């Protein structure tokens, strides 16, 4: 939910900077204490991310107001201590944030959790004395407790769900207030890199006392589109309502023009309908967003105002027409993603989240599954804006553990808290097309598991009956069962269905390509989607979705590399015969199964997918040469170690595997202008052809033909020795506010300006100007060092630096150096 600010971000920064000069005294004694932030005016969603103090580690008395925290580190949120260097760590067993002995092991990518404390000083003497003040955390990993001025406000147990506290009763209206957050990520509690701390945004709502719009109390959905008119039903919950109040709801288009408005007397739960003539509809190809404004008024006096993005669209799913958005069929070309932002760890910067979505859209993805937790709201903002469909998922386990210290410990008594927060906080998102109640849930087909499945699905339908419910089901869907009229989905009473899918509107299949059509034959009402797939099956899933509309499409595991589940996607050379299965271990820290790597570049699997999905007619890659007697083990989630490279010094004369992917019917290779092979491609080849070519430096060219016509050419050229660096900001200008990020690519080039495709070399960085270096590293899936130092090692000839604005405008100079290479620099202008 995006809510308007009464004070814009730049003004807020100016005000908070000014407030930093305010004197602060505690207990009458002069102390070296942090400055208190002043809250300016009233409004919703006021940013509250800057000026926190942080201590890594446990301690007692840290919640006390009087604690002298001047020695604590200053941090601005979002913050994740797990991606910071291990304190006191040293190679070879500790490298940057990675510790070979970390309790999470491969699951967390050898990163550590633990305990951390945050303190934030603020003043409220700039707002009305009776103002109501609430704080909203979008996510703290994993368990948190919050105190205000020494009094505990509560605790939260789910690491990915938003939660709020009312600060009003405990506020010191005239002096310093101290908000304290204790975050803990203890033991074996996650199967992937989760991060630790306040890793998502924090907001304040400052409102007049009395009547107000309930938190997440506005629910809107497009009920009908017909004859050039859209009907949008809106339900609004109001707290402390009285008869003199008026509720005004309106939609504005992207230009700010009011396209529909409704006004009615306010009641505790008001229902209104907006009639939009000539609506600009939202879809993946045209993500037209409106602003939904909700105002609570007493006469001319505005009491409360909430704004959020809203897309007018109708999503339907059925076995004959598949998934349709506004009547147009869309095959889900989706990817699963975890929540981390690569070198930034779990920090949910809006710019980083949007960059991820842009990278996926550029590779043809139209959907994301937020495996296996509710998404950050900054990521949902990007999906709404860029037309990315979303499956928002609640849980990775229910009542039975996957890890001894995971959320199963709290699930039986706490499940409705994160579930409600997920649905209510994001139910107006145009991008969300279905809710998932869980991933590969253990014991889901037992009597207890079946009942939990019903409870969760039914709870969602009570909160939001406008979207279907699914779950990602591994293995068997369970025994056949029938449900009664009272319990079944509408029209399904008495019909035999599998125990895991009987209460789902869409059955999610993990890795069961061959079963989708077989199961449909037995259950002709079943709509299904592949909630996880292997990358090498991309062609088969596309073909299945095209011939079988009851199958909506796929979510590959995964669209992007992520930290943790280390090495599941690694292709590993072994001596002799390949074993049937291999488990990677230290120093792997990255799953490495993504189409897109950890810093945002397309990998070999993505190039294949480009061809399968029609983005490219032809791609070519070469498998890294193996030493004699070695075999490459390529697991189900992995891709052969292929590079778009014809630079294999030392392999002269050896036969190399050249893989060509094409939508054509014939491909041919030329090496240094001479034919090096050609192959016809039939449907059974699934767009793939493999050649064996003796290596000789020069130019390897692939040509694709269809019906005798050339439809594509690709060239790989042997590069010369590394000669210089290139520093290339992804954008020459950027914002200067504290949440703004700037990505700077650093390439190692030869004298002709070509990236050295397989170069690993230490690079040093110097940043001057109003930005700080908050991430520096590469896509290397192994632990090679810090993500936050000035030095990093390139991987595949590239590294990535991420800068964060300090809050001031100006020019930032980034200079890169590497031994033996000509250095390079670039200027980034922040406005």
């Amino acid at each position, binding site marked *: 939910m995006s809510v308007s600010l009464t004070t814009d971000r730049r003004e807020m920064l100016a005000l908070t900077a000014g407030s930093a000069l305010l004197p602060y005294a505690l207990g009458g004694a002069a102390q070296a204490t942090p400055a208190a932030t002043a809250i300016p005016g009233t409004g919703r969603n006021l940013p509250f991310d800057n000026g926190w103090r942080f201590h890594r580690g446990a301690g007692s008395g840290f919640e006390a107001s009087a604690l002298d925290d001047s020695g604590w580190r200053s941090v601005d949120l979002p913050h994740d201590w797990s991606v910071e260097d291990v304190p006191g760590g040293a190679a070879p067993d500790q490298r940057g944030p990675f510790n070979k002995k970390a309790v999470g092991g491969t699951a967390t990518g050898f990163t550590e959790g633990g305990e951390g404390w945050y303190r934030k000083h603020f003043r409220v003497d700039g707002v009305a004395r009776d103002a109501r003040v609430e704080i909203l955390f979008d996510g703290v990993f994993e368990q948190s407790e919050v105190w205000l001025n020494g009094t505990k406000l509560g605790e939260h147990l789910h690491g990915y769900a938003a939660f709020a506290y009312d600060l009003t009763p405990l506020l010191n209206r005239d002096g310093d207030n101290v908000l304290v957050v204790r975050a803990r990520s203890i033991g074996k509690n996650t199967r992937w890199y989760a991060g630790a701390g306040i890793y998502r945004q924090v907001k304040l709502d400052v409102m007049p006392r009395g009547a107000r719009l309930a938190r997440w109390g506005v629910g809107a959905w497009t009920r009908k589109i*017909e004859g050039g008119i859209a009907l949008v039903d809106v339900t609004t919950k109001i707290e402390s309502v009285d008869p003199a109040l008026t509720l005004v709801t309106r939609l504005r288009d992207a230009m700010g023009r009011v396209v529909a408005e409704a006004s009615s007397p306010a009641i505790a739960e008001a229902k209104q309908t907006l009639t939009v003539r000539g609506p600009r509809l939202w879809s993946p190809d045209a993500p037209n967003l409106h602003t939904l404004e909700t105002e609570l008024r007493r006469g001319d006096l505005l009491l409360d105002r909430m704004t959020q993005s809203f897309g007018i669209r109708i999503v339907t799913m059925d076995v004959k027409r598949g998934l349709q958005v506004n009547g147009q069929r869309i095959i889900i070309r989706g990817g699963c993603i975890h929540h981390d932002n690569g070198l930034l760890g779990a920090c949910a910067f809006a710019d980083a989240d949007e960059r991820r979505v842009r990278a996926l859209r550029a590779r043809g993805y139209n959907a994301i599954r937020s495996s296996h937790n509710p998404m950050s709201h900054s990521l949902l903002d990007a999906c709404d804006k860029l037309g990315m469909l979303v499956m928002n998922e609640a849980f990775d386990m229910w009542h039975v*553990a996957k890890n001894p210290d995971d959320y199963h410990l709290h699930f039986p008594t706490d499940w409705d808290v994160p579930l409600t927060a997920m649905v209510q906080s994001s139910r107006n998102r145009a991008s969300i097309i279905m809710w998932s109640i869980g991933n590969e849930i253990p014991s*889901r*087909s037992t009597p207890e*598991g079946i009942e939990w499945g019903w409870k969760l699905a039914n709870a969602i339908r009570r909160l939001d009956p406008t979207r279907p419910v699914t779950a990602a089901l591994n293995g068997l869907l369970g025994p056949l069962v029938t449900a009664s009229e009272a319990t079944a989905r509408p029209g399904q009473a008495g019909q035999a269905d599998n125990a895991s899918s009987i209460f789902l509107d869409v059955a999610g299949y993990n890795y069961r390509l061959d079963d989708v059509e077989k199961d449909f034959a037995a259950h002709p009402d079943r709509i299904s989607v592949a909630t996880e797939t292997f990358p090498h099956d991309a062609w088969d899933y596309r073909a299945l979705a095209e011939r079988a509309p009851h199958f909506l499409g796929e979510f590959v595991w995964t669209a992007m590399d992520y930290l943790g589940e280390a090495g599941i996607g690694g292709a590993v050379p072994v001596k002799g015969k390949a074993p049937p299965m291999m488990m990677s271990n230290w120093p792997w820290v990255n799953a490495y199964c993504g189409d897109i790597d950890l810093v945002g570049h397309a990998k070999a699997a993505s190039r294949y997918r480009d061809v399968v999905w029609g983005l490219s007619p032809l791609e070519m890659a070469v498998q890294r040469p193996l030493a004699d007697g070695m075999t490459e083990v390529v697991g189900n989630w992995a891709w052969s170690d292929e590079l778009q490279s014809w630079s294999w010094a030392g392999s002269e004369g050896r036969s190399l595997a050249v893989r060509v992917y094409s939508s054509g019917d014939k491909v041919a290779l030329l090496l240094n202008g001479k034919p090096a092979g050609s192959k016809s491609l039939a449907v059974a080849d699934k767009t793939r052809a493999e050649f064996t070519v003796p290596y000789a430096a020069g130019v390897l060219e692939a040509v694709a033909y269809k019906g005798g016509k050339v439809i594509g050419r690709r060239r790989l050229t042997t590069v010369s020795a590394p000669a210089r660096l290139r520093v290339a900001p992804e954008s020459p200008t950027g914002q200067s506010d504290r949440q703004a990020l700037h990505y700077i690519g650093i390439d190692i080039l030869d004298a002709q300006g070509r990236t050295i495709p397989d170069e690993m070399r230490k690079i040093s960085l110097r940043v001057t100007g109003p930005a700080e270096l908050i991430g520096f590293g590469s896509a290397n899936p192994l632990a090679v060092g810090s993500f936050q130092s000035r030095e990093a090692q390139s991987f595949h000839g590239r590294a990535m630096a991420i800068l964060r604005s300090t809050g001031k405008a100006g020019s930032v100079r980034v200079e890169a150096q590497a031994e033996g290479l000509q250095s390079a620099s670039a200027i980034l202008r922040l406005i």
Partner: protein
Amino acid sequence: MDAPLYPPSSAYEAPVRVPQQMSTRDSSFADFLASPEALAIMKSEVPQFEGFIKNPMLAPHLGNMGPRDMVQFGGFKADALDRVDVKLKAANVRTGGAQ
């Protein structure tokens, strides 16, 4: 065009299990462990069956996974499971009863 709705149901009553022919595709490890007859047939063709499913990583998924799921991971051979299915069918081994 009207938007669909997915309304909640009114109350929970435990679903009733439908009797089913057992097979390596549709029956879980838990089903095999619960049926001495099916287990004996399985062990006759896949002697390592019980040892395999003692893997602690598999423990939470005994009800969600079946023998056929393990073929893609190299756990069992498809031809052995085909023979198990023939024997299960011949003996008419079924799961079912009240859920």
